[in-house]
């Protein structure tokens, strides 16, 4: 807008730079979680995730050959070979090793070429930068080889093992599959049912004349802000009394009730903006209200229906409180993802690989919906707030 008067703003580069900074700041935490979900537990513990994107100096534990690989040279048992080539997993052969160590207490005690000493003084170990080693001992060797820690600059490495563990392993603690399905089971009816009920009510409030209409609209606006915390105990009592108890039906009903004010409000605002002519013409042609509603109003209101559907979907998918109160019983069979993540935070607070993956599985669906339907979400937000 600044160049309206024919003057280009000199602040342009500063604006670009600040936006880059702002976006980076906002993305950084989420990217951290995403990157961590592709790293092994050791990698996460060894370095910050921001270092995972670049080659970094890392310590890797490998083993020499064991007793069966040993040859006897006089009094000595000797194992020779190449650590990198023998290892089944770990750094690629050809990686340059800078330091090594033989004890977990001093993983980088020696430079390559030096000879490592052991506490019992019966063994020696040395290696070069390419991983060729010579391990000697005056006693017969054990079946397993000697532990060696090497320090080398390794390229970034990512794994899908965490997703395998969280989605496919069936491990009762970590598996999110059941929680994922449960969440879906809660979400879909809880999104569809309020739309149907609200659409009819919104039509009546927008296009029918009857006494008390203004009062009802005001009531809906008021209920819009009533905190759902108030409803927890009375409704739980009600559900227990009428036999619904804790379960899917209860949580569907609760989400329907809590979503209705916004649904009615959004849809009414949208419907009352539709052109009066269409509706009056249809009436003159002899259409009943029911026909007008299903054949004219509903198709025309699609944008508003879509915005509310997204809101309600995000809200029910991300909800923790309503599920905890109305759904999850002591058996835990009906747990939802948000609840399971909170439990993981308690029991596996340090296992970032599982936590990050589980959290990312749970936020991936809303993110997909968000990016696919952002237009409707924005439209709904604007209709719901700007007056």
């Amino acid at each position: 807008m600044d160049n309206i008067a024919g003057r280009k703003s000199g602040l342009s580069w500063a604006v670009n730079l600040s936006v880059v900074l702002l976006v980076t700041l906002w993305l950084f935490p989420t990217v951290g979680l995403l990157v961590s979900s592709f790293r092994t537990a050791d990698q996460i513990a060894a370095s910050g995730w921001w270092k995972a994107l670049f080659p970094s100096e890392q310590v890797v534990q490998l083993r020499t050959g064991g007793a069966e690989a040993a040859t006897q040279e006089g009094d000595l048992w000797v194992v020779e070979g190449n650590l990198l080539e023998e290892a089944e997993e770990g750094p690629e052969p050809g990686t340059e090793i800078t330091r090594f160590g033989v004890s977990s207490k001093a993983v980088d005690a020696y430079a390559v070429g030096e000879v490592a000493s052991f506490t019992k003084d019966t063994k020696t170990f040395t290696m070069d930068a390419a991983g060729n080693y010579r391990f000697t001992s005056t006693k017969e060797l054990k079946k397993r080889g000697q532990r060696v820690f090497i320090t080398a600059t390794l390229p970034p490495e990512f794994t899908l093992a965490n997703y395998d563990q969280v989605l496919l392993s069936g491990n009762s603690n970590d598996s999110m599959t059941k929680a994922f399905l449960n969440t879906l089971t809660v979400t879909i009816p809880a999104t569809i049912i309020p739309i149907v009920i609200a659409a009819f009510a919104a039509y009546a409030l927008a296009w029918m004349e009857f006494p008390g209409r203004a009062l009802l609209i005001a009531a809906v606006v008021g209920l819009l802000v009533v905190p759902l915390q108030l409803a927890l105990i009375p409704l739980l009592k009600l559900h227990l009394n009428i036999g619904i108890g804790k379960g899917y039906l209860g949580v569907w009903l609760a989400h329907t009730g809590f979503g209705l004010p916004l649904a009615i409000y959004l849809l009414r605002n949208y419907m009352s903006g539709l052109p009066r002519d269409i509706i009056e013409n249809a009436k003159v042609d002899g259409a009943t209200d029911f026909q007008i509603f299903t054949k004219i109003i509903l198709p025309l209101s699609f944008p508003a229906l879509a915005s509310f559907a997204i809101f309600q979907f995000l809200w029910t998918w991300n909800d923790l409180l309503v599920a905890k109160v109305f759904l999850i019983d002591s058996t835990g069979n009906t747990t939802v993802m948000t609840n399971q993540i909170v439990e993981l935070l308690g029991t596996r607070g340090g296992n970032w690989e599982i936590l990050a993956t589980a959290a990312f599985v749970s936020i991936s669906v809303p993110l997909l919906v968000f990016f696919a339907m952002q237009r409707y979400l924005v439209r709904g937000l604007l209709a719901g707030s700007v007056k």
Partner: protein
Amino acid sequence: MSPALLGLVTIVVGVGGCLGYFYLSNLFLDKVLFPARGPNAGRNINRANMVRPWLFLGPGIVALGLYLGYPVFETLRLSLTDRTQDDAFVGLANYQQMFAEPKFWEAMRNNMLWLIVVPAASTAFGLLAAQLTDRIKWGSIAKSLIFMPMAISFVGASVIFKLVYDARPAGNEQIGILNAVWMQFDGGFGSILFLKLAPVLILAAFAAIVAYVGWLLLRPILGGKDNFALKALRAVSGLVSLYFAMIALRNIFDIIGMDFPYGQPQTWLTLPFYNNFFLMVVLIWIQTGFAMVILSAALRGIPEETVEAAIVDGANPFQIFFKIKVPQIMPTIVVVWTTITLVVLKVFDIVFAMTNGQWETQVLANYMYDKLFRANDWGVGSASAIIIMLLVSPILIWNVVQARKEMR
């Protein structure tokens, strides 16, 4: 029955039931009860049209009444009774018990902090982001990325930020970014610049703004044109502003005099008082996108002539923003502010997942959950729910008044 099948059946029964109800009840009304033919056709049509709205509204009204209307009164009743004494009426005993608990006052204090900091910061960041992204080519991509946290659950965001705040013992590599940055500070020039000078300047700016607002509020009292109620309101809000300015000034001295534990990793979430702000960051991170989207639409709705006139008159970009644009979108800013305030009052998941109210981070919603479902004390739990309701009600009344004004 498997839950998925049950879900499907519920969708079919629910949606089909609703449609069937609407269709059949309308049919019944038009064909059986008040048929639009015969000697009374005209009267019948009118009668049917009087009844029909209530058929359309029926399920909605029942659901709203049962799930939001009734609980308000039932909670009020529960807050005045004691469950252990067979629901006997105990007057305000629950409230007395609650007011005697330090944990409740801690929750109140924290909620007030949240109420000031989160809406203010979210709106400010949102306004900044809206204004900046509107001027660049890739603005819509930037907007969509800043808006993205809206889709992330509070629980997911809590995990994300737990990783940010993670702390490892000194000597180990830090995997939380905040500690990794913190360990870079060693008490040298950079540390003084970022940890002393920058916060002092920010606090000083805050104090100046708040004091100025307070002065603006208080000044007209001396003029004596307003009625008494308005004067009282001005006096109270003006004095509150001045109080915050004073707190900010006091914190400036605290920061200058503080010895930072350089080189020691901090467990951020266990630092009393400051950990509240680390929790608030999560909600600010989520809500900024919301504020940005709405304010950006409002900024675009500003008539261009006003801005052009200002440019012709020689206003600089800052003057245009603060003196031309902001005053014109003030109503929208108020709406954004109140909407975020409502979110803050109900904030539960973040505190529950990150600290569960330990280390002096309790908030009302989590306090209530604690009372209801851990202590099983329905009386005090309901009483704290009523407190939340009371805090919400000014916004509720304002919204209703606003909506009624619009309809006239």
